[in-house]
């Protein structure tokens, strides 16, 4: 059934069964054998020429101030220093706002806007000397009032970094007024440091006649190219940006990599020598933006059966000192403030607030998880108000396919399977029986309480900026029959390159050894989009397919003519190219085609169909399709300390017809743990002067090995081809699983609710650190008057 649908789509494989490991089957990561041997090269591993210089940055120590004076004499005088670059040394554009907002100088001019802002760059013979010298500047500041968080920003008038977005459908105010039940509340949800294991790094080589080649750890080589050209004041065609792989990105190298690449390029241009800038971890965390923290105020009307009738929501975000990607991030928070639920009448509004902190940026989910968190908060609170099982409230509100299927942005949801996924998962993991058992356990356990929750995800796939939904590829077949694939996407661990290789394998019938992926470079595929928004395989996969099919068509026509068979009788199989009755080795056919002067190289191009979006009206079809899934988490909480553990997690996820099931399961496992970390232990802490105090892994804690769920079952939905014509009917899988972390937050909330015998809604905010959990437990004890004589505050 599934295969038939795929066949009919025009994106199905041609010919008989593909080779082992080709697309739609599992294949190990294309670099796995290099990763494990330490042979995979990252920017800092590229052999640095002996004449290279090294860059380190001087940072602002104030959150908001006017620079009265900056004495760089001691920096310049430090042994080994070649030169020091400040804003006035940037002859062209000292500006790297990725959205053209003009509010993001590369190096501070006369003001600083956050503690950690780069003031100057030291260029030295060694990295050590550059770092030593960078702390020697004497800077005089005149402090200005600093706005550090959402509360302060609102109190100071609520200056925005970009426009607010509003989405309305129906009349929310009236629906709320008419609803038999109504509740309002506020959800605070913290930010998150990316903590890619490889920090930001770039190596710049000056070439002849103004050329600049950059080896960068960037998710967006084209934008890095543009920014470098902009800062150097040269045309784009002089700058080539190359990235073989990143040691993790998660959105943190979509725009933030530009800072590092531009400064390395400036140093190289100034000295005429190769220049490397690799940030120390502490500097990386002090300088670069993070996931936006949100405060979400909601007002919801519902009936006694738990049906949502009206929703009014305001989603305020701490955006930091500059616009960066805060516009689209806060937009996406709105796009996902329904998560998987139908809101009959709705009004949603974003409030992207400017603050004197790091400029928050893209991070896996891109605002979506924060929006979805609000939807889940609403479902859970309605369950409390109605006395229903939260799962039943969720199932009653989930999107239909023929009715109750229009989003707050007026897009009709055609593919919802969220209800089926939740129902199947609940059955598979025995949710209802375990929930009853947990409530029994909690009756007799004084200090250890257990909780369970099952939450869905519906995640919109496409860049909401429609023009980014395009991709290019370049495929070469060499005369020995080996293939080289290049495309516009970047590899950051997600297995994109592996999937691209698998597509070529499947189409050509070649084993993986015969298909080589090369570093992403602006010199091969130009004008690319960021590898972001989960779109890497969708967009680039179709571009690779287009390029491969162009070459195949030429080979088919050539073979048909040469061996006098109809083109329909030429098939690419694992055994070779079947031409009528004969089977010709791929290399033989290719070589013959070359001798006949057939081009064996092609570009490929793809743009996503059907999508449109008008932010002015808040209407459109911003997403080509949705990816779905559900997670069930069980936790145990210690009421003496707030410590907690994930005892069991079950996930059922929709990857369409997966391009690589093993890699997709890896994305789900990893995305889930990252999401759970965000919502539980990862806490960003700024002191009252605006200095980030959690600027290293000693103070900022991401999940460790023992934090993974003790029992962890992850499955892909079977036989669910994408209804849309995506690459081999697969679905994007990068960001959606991150949202599964919400199940953990709600399971902790469920455990805490037992403190007051499930009478009071816990209202747990994120991150649910041990301290947060203990605070809520204390509040519930006091509200409920439940006696725990020995537990004191």
């Amino acid at each position, binding site marked *: 059934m599934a295969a038939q649908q795929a066949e009919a789509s025009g994106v199905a494989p041609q010919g008989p069964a593909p080779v082992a490991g080709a697309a739609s089957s599992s294949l190990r990561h294309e670099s796995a054998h290099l*990763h*494990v041997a330490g042979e995979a090269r990252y920017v800092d591993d590229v052999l640095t020429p002996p004449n290279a210089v090294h860059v380190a940055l001087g940072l602002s120590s104030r959150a908001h101030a006017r620079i009265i004076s900056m004495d760089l004499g001691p920096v310049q005088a430090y042994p080994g220093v070649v030169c020091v670059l400040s804003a006035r040394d940037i002859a062209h554009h000292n500006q790297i706002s990725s959205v053209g907002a003009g509010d993001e100088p590369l190096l501070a001019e006369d003001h600083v806007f956050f503690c950690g802002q780069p003031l100057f760059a030291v260029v030295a013979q060694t990295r050590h000397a550059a770092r030593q010298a960078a702390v020697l500047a004497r800077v005089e500041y005149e402090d200005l009032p600093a706005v550090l968080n959402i509360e302060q920003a609102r109190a100071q008038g609520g200056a925005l970094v970009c426009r607010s977005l509003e989405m309305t459908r129906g009349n929310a105010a009236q629906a709320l007024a008419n609803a038999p039940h109504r509740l309002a509340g506020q959800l605070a949800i913290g930010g998150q440091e990316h903590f890619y294991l490889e920090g930001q790094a770039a190596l710049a080589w000056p070439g002849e006649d103004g050329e600049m080649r950059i080896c960068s750890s960037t998710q967006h080589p084209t934008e890095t190219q543009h920014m470098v050209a902009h800062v150097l004041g040269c045309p784009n065609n002089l700058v080539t940006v190359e990235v073989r792989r990143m040691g993790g990105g998660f959105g943190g190298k979509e725009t933030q990599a530009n800072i590092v690449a531009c400064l390395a390029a400036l140093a190289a241009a100034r000295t005429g020598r190769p220049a490397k800038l690799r940030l120390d971890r502490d500097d990386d965390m002090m300088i670069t933006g993070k996931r936006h923290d949100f405060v979400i105020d909601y007002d919801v009307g519902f009936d006694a059966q738990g049906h949502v009738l009206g929703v009014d929501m305001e989603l305020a975000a701490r955006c930091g000192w500059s616009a960066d990607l805060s516009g689209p991030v806060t937009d996406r928070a709105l796009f996902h403030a329904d998560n998987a639920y139908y809101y009959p009448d709705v009004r949603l509004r974003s409030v992207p607030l400017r603050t004197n902190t790091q400029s928050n940026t893209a991070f896996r989910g891109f605002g979506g998880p924060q929006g979805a968190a609000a939807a889940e908060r609403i479902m859970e609170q309605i369950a409390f108000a109605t006395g229903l099982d939260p799962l039943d409230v969720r199932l009653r509100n989930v999107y239909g396919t023929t009715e109750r299927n229009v989003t707050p942005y007026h897009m009709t949801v055609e593919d919802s399977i969220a209800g089926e996924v939740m129902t199947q998962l609940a059955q598979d993991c025995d949710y209802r029986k375990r929930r009853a058992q947990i409530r029994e356990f909690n009756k007799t356990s004084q200090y250890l309480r257990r909780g369970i929750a099952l939450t869905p995800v519906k995640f919109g796939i496409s860049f909401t900026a429609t023009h980014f939904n395009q991709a290019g590829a370049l495929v070469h077949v060499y005369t020995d029959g080996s293939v080289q694939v290049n495309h516009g996407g970047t590899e950051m661990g997600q297995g994109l390159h592996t999937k691209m290789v698998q597509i070529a394998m499947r189409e050509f019938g070649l084993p993986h050894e015969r298909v080589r992926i090369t570093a992403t470079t602006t010199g091969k595929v130009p004008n690319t989009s960021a590898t972001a928004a989960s779109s890497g395989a969708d967009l680039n996969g179709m571009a690779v397919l287009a390029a491969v099919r162009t070459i195949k068509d030429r080979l088919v026509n050539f073979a048909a003519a040469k061996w006098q068979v109809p083109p329909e009788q030429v098939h690419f199989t694992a055994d070779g190219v079947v031409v009528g009755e004969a089977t010709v080795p791929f290399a033989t056919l290719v070589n013959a085609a070359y001798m006949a002067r057939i081009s064996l190289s092609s570009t490929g191009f793809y743009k996503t169909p059907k999508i449109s979006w008008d932010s002015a009206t808040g209407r459109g079809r911003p997403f080509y399709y949705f990816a779905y899934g559900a997670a069930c988490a069980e936790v145990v909480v210690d009421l003496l300390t707030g410590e907690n553990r994930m005892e069991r997690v079950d996930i059922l996820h929709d990857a369409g017809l997966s391009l690589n099931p093993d890699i997709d399961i890896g994305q789900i496992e990893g995305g889930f743990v990252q999401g759970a970390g965000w919502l539980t232990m990862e806490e960003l802490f700024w002191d009252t002067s605006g200095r980030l105090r959690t600027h290293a892994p000693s103070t900022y804690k991401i999940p*460790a090995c023992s934090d993974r769920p003790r029992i962890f079952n992850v499955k892909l939905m079977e036989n669910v081809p994408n209804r849309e014509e995506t690459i081999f009917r697969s679905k994007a899988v990068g960001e959606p699983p991150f949202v599964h972390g919400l199940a953990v937050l709600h399971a902790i909330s469920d455990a805490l609710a037992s403190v007051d015998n499930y009478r009071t809604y816990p209202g747990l905010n994120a991150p649910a650190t041990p301290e947060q959990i*203990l605070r809520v437990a204390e509040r519930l004890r006091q509200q409920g008057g439940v006696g725990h004589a020995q537990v004191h505050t």
Partner: protein
Amino acid sequence: MRQHVSFYVGDTLHHLSSLPPELTLLDWLRDQQARTGTKEGCNEGDCGACTVLVGRLEQGHLVWRAVNACIHMVWMLDGAQLLTVEDLRGPDGALHPVQQAMVDEHGSQCGFCTPGFVMSMVALSTRADLAALEGTLDGERIINEALAGNLCRCTGYAPIVRAMKKAAAYCVRHGEPISARTAELSARLQALQDGKTVELHSPQGRVTLPATVEALATAYAQDPAAVLVAGGTDVGLWVTKRLRQLPHIIAVRTARDLHKIHTRPDGALWIGAGVTYTEAMPHLVAHLPAAADTLRRIGSTQVRNAATVCGNIGNASPIGDGPPIFMAAGAQLYLRCGTDRRVVPLEAFFLEYGKQDIRPGEFIEGVLIPPLPAGSVCGVYKVSKRFDQDISAVLGAFVLVMAEDGTIQQARLAYGGMAGIPCRASRAEAALTGQMRTPETLLAAQAAIKEDFTPLSDMRASAWYRATVAANLLVRLFEPDRDNSPHHAPTLQNWQEVAHG
């Protein structure tokens, strides 16, 4: 006297005579040896991307320890065998079983943390008790412990643990390739052990590697401005983060007579200043069983492999986990300056934040931990934001010495994270002393805790949280009678076993 250090990297013997004292192993490997497989993730010993294996002869046996190269100084390798990820392939180029399992189980995604994980996993796979990993809860625990010092942001760890189990099963059946070379590697390391004191000189400064405690005492008395470095897990950060230069380092761990750890006839445990947490672990666990779960959470495997018990005392951090435990147990610190020796109770050593009872040129020779009196009740509880490899928000270490009539004869309640130094809760101790273990006594002690401390609020916890938890932890100490459990109330560490009978 020798004027160079000698060690093997892979099969190459290096003799180095001129080294900047604070040059880290990671920088040396990456910048000077072109061994870029070892990665820098955080440069402070927290992420494990730079994990390497150091092989040494311990009591004549070759023992492999995973350490963080970013805060390990090159001179520390004297007499050792270093293995980095580049050394793991077999002579035929085949991957090590751990590497192969990581490939097969999709244990790498971005791959940046992977070499570090591989090295920690190889260290585990050289352990003799490898068979225990298969299919038991203990196996999961051993893996969690071995990998607690390696952070991965991509995989969620599940495939890495699967790979570890698979590799372990393989090595149990077919042998582990590095262990197979034990005799050969031991012999060539034995040849490097000449028992000599080493002095390294370079334009940036010098390093003294005393062979004996006498040599150490003499060197330090001559230059009290020198920096003593034992495991370097704290001093390493002075170098990598504060960019400090250390013109004269005196090594502690090279003095062979500081490596003693033994139980005296009176039952007291002596731990010399050169003993790492890893080496001390079996002794400490036997001596203070209630502290076992917390001791395993100090730093990470890599940190405990380098860090010494006495270094954890000597750096006098208010949030070190060892000092409150030893303080509750009534430990005494043995100090030495030249030939002068004195003994101070551990709690008297910490004067105030950043100030200890120690004189220029004086150093810790060892710590003596008396046995717990018969019938005493002991509980040690560490509370942190993350379970593993995190600095405590609060650590409570409690010893109640019980009289025969069931009254509390003596109470020793020591806390970390509650003040500028690790210290005892004297008012709470007074509230307990002479009382029966009743709910009323608990309430009185909890109230007194509030008077004992005025904790700070910082990024790890608020003052409210610290004060509340400090009081709540006493509940665990009072639980045994009611729950009739042998040690203490079920905590998250052991609740599953308790719940499942």
